[in-house]
């Protein structure tokens, strides 16, 4: 609205302003160097705090001329310095200004300027570079093409507090990838920056601290080095702990906590180290309190979520620290109804941060409830928690949706919650909606949650089935992402567990045997395992076994053979033998094994395998084949006796005594049961 009003005005004013602006630019071309200098100084005074003037000068082409003067060896040092100052001032304007400056190749020119010996000039160049690099529109890789730049910047760190502040600030903004981290690390960033943590200047301290947080993030090499660094005889981790003292500025406490969090997650500090348990964790919990600024609360919650994600003990501690679970409920109260009436500015501020707050809270809840059942219970009992998740699942912001589904996923690991709150709030509905059309990262989380909702004891299973989920899951199994394929097939597996015939048939139909067998040769072991699990679940109860085997018996037997012959893990082979045992349980399906001597030989050899689990599964299979009460058991028993199965069974009953481990005992008793079939 404001823009529309301003537009016509701006045009009329522009012509006047440009006239005076042009004068400034013209003076840069004066043949008298003294006048040029005066012109630059006047320009400096004219642009300070005047965005319009800055834009005008850029449009009128002041930048290339300033850069020319800055680079010209014939220019006096004073002139070159003033040029750098003006350019720095121009960079302080809008993002468009920055873009124009970058387009004029200001970065290489300024980096070149750093080679000069004069400190004032270097500082002016660095200040300008800093302003350019901290802008989100500047591509950070522009710092890296020239391999001499980083070492030179490192050497400038000793020049003055200003160079320290600007250079560390540039580093912390330009270190975005593991490659950047490695470059900085290899040029001695740690040794050069560590002493700055004890700088008398707060700004330098802060920028150095920020540098360490970006360097250590998900970087084991950096983190492992950091733990051994001494600053004035004090371990770096202790320096960070000192910076988290409660009378330090919040920004410092928070950033120090981030450094320690990243070092911990990178494996350099144990999660039970006191500096994590008694210092970093409480510090981050404090950052979530109502007294902190909204930005700080977001950052605090996200960092805390990241810190304790893999460690159940930290999750338990955090869940009882300073009422954190209840404190997080407050994150959903923005914009508050009061602020809307009381203060428009505040409303605006609240609105801006509302999404961020919600997603941060969801993330933290997800992390808190990742492993501990009691914590999950506490979370679901928080006021309106399930309603908040449900509405979070359908928010416009992807970040919030993703965080909400992560939270839901965490809570869905609880049997109790699946049975109660999940069903009461019909969370499957928004979840299904989310699955229809979402980016992969959301899809992974959502489908993973769905897997849990489809567990046989989950009351949500029925309504989900009725909503036509099978097609959707089958399409997931065709995804390029292994995570999605696993989740798709996993959900189908859960769905098939003790399902009725109709569902099983539907799954086989929708998936198609071709896809099923493709999944059996999937490069991802997890996918293979879950597919075998699905097969096993499909092949349960005799009528189902016979029916499926009558239509797909040949392919299934082929696949089984292939897997048993291939290079697979024990778990995969065990699962496959279990499938075979299920087939052996069928009435007609049995024959598919009995007529396949090759397969019988395989079973026999697995009975003598060194792994008890495989022996067990193979014996189970044999026991099903020779079961007395069924038709034709006598012939099957005879055939197997001929093939030497009885001897093996006999050996198995002998070999193990009850004092041995459970599975061996199980094996011997299973073998005994099988032997009894012969004796009967």
């Amino acid at each position, binding site marked *: 609205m404001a823009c529309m009003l301003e537009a016509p005005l701006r045009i009329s004013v522009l012509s006047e302003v440009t006239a005076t602006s042009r004068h400034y630019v013209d003076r840069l071309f004066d043949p008298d160097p003294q006048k040029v200098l005066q012109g630059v100084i006047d320009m400096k005074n004219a642009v300070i705090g005047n965005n319009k003037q800055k834009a005008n000068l850029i449009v009128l082409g002041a930048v290339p001329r300033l850069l020319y003067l800055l680079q010209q060896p014939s220019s006096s040092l004073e002139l070159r310095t003033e040029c750098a100052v003006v350019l720095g001032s121009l960079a302080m304007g809008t993002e468009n200004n920055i873009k124009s400056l970058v387009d004029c190749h200001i970065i290489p020119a300024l980096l070149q300027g750093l080679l000069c010996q004069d400190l004032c000039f270097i500082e002016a160049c660095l200040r300008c570079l800093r302003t350019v690099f901290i802008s989100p529109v500047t591509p950070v890789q522009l710092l890296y093409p020239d391999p001499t730049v980083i070492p030179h910047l490192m050497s400038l760190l000793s020049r003055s507090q200003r160079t320290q502040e600007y250079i560390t600030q540039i580093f912390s903004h330009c270190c975005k990838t593991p490659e950047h981290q490695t470059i900085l690390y290899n040029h001695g960033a740690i040794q050069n920056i560590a002493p700055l943590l004890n700088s008398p200047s707060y700004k330098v301290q802060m920028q150095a601290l920020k540098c360490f947080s970006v360097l250590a993030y998900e970087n084991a090499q950096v983190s492992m080095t950091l733990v051994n660094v001494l600053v004035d005889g004090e371990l770096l981790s202790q320096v960070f702990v000192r910076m988290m003292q*409660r009378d330090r500025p919040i920004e410092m406490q928070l950033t120090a906590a981030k450094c320690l969090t990243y070092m911990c997650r990178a494996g350099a500090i144990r999660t039970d180290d006191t500096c994590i348990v*008694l210092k970093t964790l*409480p510090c981050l919990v404090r950052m979530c309190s109502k007294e902190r600024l909204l930005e700080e609360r977001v950052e605090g919650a996200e960092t805390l979520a990241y810190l304790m994600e893999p460690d159940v003990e930290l999750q338990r501690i955090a869940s*009882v*620290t*300073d009422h954190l679970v209840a404190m997080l409920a407050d994150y959903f109260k923005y914009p508050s109804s009061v602020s809307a009436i009381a203060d428009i500015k505040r409303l605006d501020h609240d609105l801006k941060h509302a999404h961020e707050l919600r997603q941060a809270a969801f993330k933290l809840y997800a992390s808190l409830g990742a492993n501990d059942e009691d914590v999950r219970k506490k979370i679901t009992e928080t006021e309106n928690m399930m309603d908040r998740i449900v509405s979070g699942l359908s928010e416009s912001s992807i970040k919030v949706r993703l965080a909400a589904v992560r939270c839901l996923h965490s809570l869905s690991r609880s049997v109790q919650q699946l049975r109660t709150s999940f069903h009461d709030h019909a969370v499957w509905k928004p979840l299904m909606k989310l699955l229809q059309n979402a980016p992969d990262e959301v899809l992974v989380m959502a489908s993973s949650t769905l897997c849990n909702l489809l567990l046989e004891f989950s009351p949500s299973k029925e309504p989900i089935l009725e909503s036509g989920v099978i097609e959707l899951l089958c399409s997931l199994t065709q995804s390029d992402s292994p995570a999605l394929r696993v989740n798709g097939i996993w959900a189908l597996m859960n769905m098939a567990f003790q399902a009725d015939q109709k569902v099983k048939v539907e799954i086989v139909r929708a998936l198609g045997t071709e896809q099923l067998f493709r999944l059996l040769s999937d490069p991802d072991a997890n996918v293979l395992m879950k597919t075998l699990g699905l097969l096993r679940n499909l092949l349960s109860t005799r009528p189902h076994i016979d029916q499926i085997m009558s239509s797909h018996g040949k392919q299934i037997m082929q696949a089984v053979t292939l897997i048993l012959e291939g290079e697979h893990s024990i778990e995969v082979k065990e699962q496959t033998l279990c499938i075979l045992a299920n087939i052996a349980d069928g009435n007609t399906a049995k024959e598919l094994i009995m007529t396949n001597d090759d397969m019988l030989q395989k079973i026999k050899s697995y009975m003598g395998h060194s792994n008890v689990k495989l022996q067990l599964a193979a014996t189970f299979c044999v026991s099903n084949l020779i079961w007395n009460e069924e038709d034709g058991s006598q012939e099957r028993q005879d055939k197997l006796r001929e093939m030497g199965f009885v001897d093996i069974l006999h050996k198995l009953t002998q070999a193990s005594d009850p004092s041995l481990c459970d599975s061996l005992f199980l094996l011997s008793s299973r073998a005994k049961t099988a032997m009894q079939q012969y004796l009967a």
Partner: protein
Amino acid sequence: MAELGAGSLQVGDPAFNYQEREFNERLKRLYPAVNEEETPLPRSWSPKDKYSYIGLSQNNLRVHYKGHGKNHKDAASVRAAHPIPAACGIYYFEVKIVSKGRDGYMGIGLSAQGVNMNRLPGWDKHSYGYHGDDGHSFCSSGTGQPYGPTFTTGDVIGCCVNLINNTCFYTKNGHSLGVAFTDLPPNLYPTVGLQTPGEIVDANFGQHPFVFDIEDYMSEWRAKIHSMIARFPVGERLGEWQAVLHNMVSSYLVHHGYCATAMAFARTTETIIQEEQSSIKNRQRIQKLVLAGRLGEAIDATQELYPGLLERNPNLLFMLKCRQFVEMVNGTDSEVRCFGTRSPKSQNSYPSSPSLSPRHGATNPHLHTTDSPTCSNGVTSKNKSNSKYPGVSSASSSSSSSPSSVNYSESNSTDSTKSQAHSGTSNQETSDSEMEIEAEHYTNGLADASSARIVNGTYKHEEILQTDGHGLGNGLAEDGSTSRQLCGGNLAATERMIQFGRELQALNEQLCRDYGKNPTHKKMLQDAFSLLAYADPWNCPVGQQLDPTQRESICSALNSAILESQNLPKQPPLMLALAQANECVQLMARVRAGSCSFARIDSFLH
């Protein structure tokens, strides 16, 4: 409770003493604003204020249950021996669960005096508790609220009372569990309650380091209070502030007679000094004489410059004369010094700088030294022993300068502060703006040997500290062992002293007749005369009187009397403001404003 008292008189096991000292130091550090004479801190459980089912052991720190523990009617509590003083600001204690006993029905919390002890903390009015069996908090009610985790054997539970906002939170094994109670009443006692057999808990009131980092929590509140003070809105305009501050500083300098400094300050800040410069110098001169122990001359000078002053203040005169007697014993007063082997007036080195320096809290290590470093400002002797200032070697130790000739060079008054800082390097400087740094006491004319040890041509700050270290604590004894003798060891002087003593006695009798008996005077006189009863007065029970620092109080009394006679304030406004602020902070403690703990005056003085 038995441990009350500073612990300095404890005898026996050194390990115990060490622990005790550590305990006292920790309490002092945690609760610096608490005056334990008025409001003692909880240090143990009370053997009186408990239910009969409670047993105490291990210096009343361990609590065990000895009842039947059938039901809640068998609950039993014990309170600490003292309530939590408000001046703590933030108070903290921890309880370790040694054993959860049969059921672990343990409550940790707070209760007011008189609350029924046959109950767990939290069940009754003015009683608050956190219970181990269910993790609930009980706020003066039989039904609890879900609060924290349960606790059991091996756990350490902490309870923190914030007396600034009257809230309380608990900790478990060093982790804060968040606020449990708000709007707490004052004067609560740490309390624990047990209910089933076998339950044993140990208290830590500061005897050992805490599991939870309470000092970190305190630092946050200290920062909060400090920023509150810093941001406190003041109605006046900035300029007036400045003027007020200038006047404060100026009047302070004038009061203590830092003449040149005061003049320089007045010039640069364009403030006006009310008192005549000559008057300041007169006071300065008298102060110097008093601080040098030359009371006789000081009295003469006062009578000459301010006739009638001492007549109107007979008590002051008596005090001065008493002191004069002491100084005679010391051998410093000119009436006895004139009997010395050397020219009586030749020894112008004073044991301490002639002006009082304000005392800034007990943290200053120099405070208890007898010597100059505390009196670091402005006024100084004009004529020093030549070994100290080789540049004025012509002024040999025998070149006398009578007290009346003590004149004040103003040669460098243009930049007095600067000259203070560098005075040692310029040998000629003898101006009154120099710093006095002599750290030795010259009890008689034989001081040269000792002065040579410490004095040299150039001095730096470090040297001050160093010499200070030498002088520390042994001021009199050091020299007294060899050269110190009554009245400088001169017979004639001793006779003069005896005679003076008689006059003093007569004066006392005179005053008694005129104004009635004055026990203070009697005591003063007795103390002074007692010095003669000992062979070595410097090392006797009343020898403290001979310490040059004892001159300071009489010096400031005389200075104040002079100022009052001139219709000038007898206290500098700066000191008044400081004293008022101090008084306010103490008052805050008495009216239970907990923030006083973090608004300490000395944390603003450096």
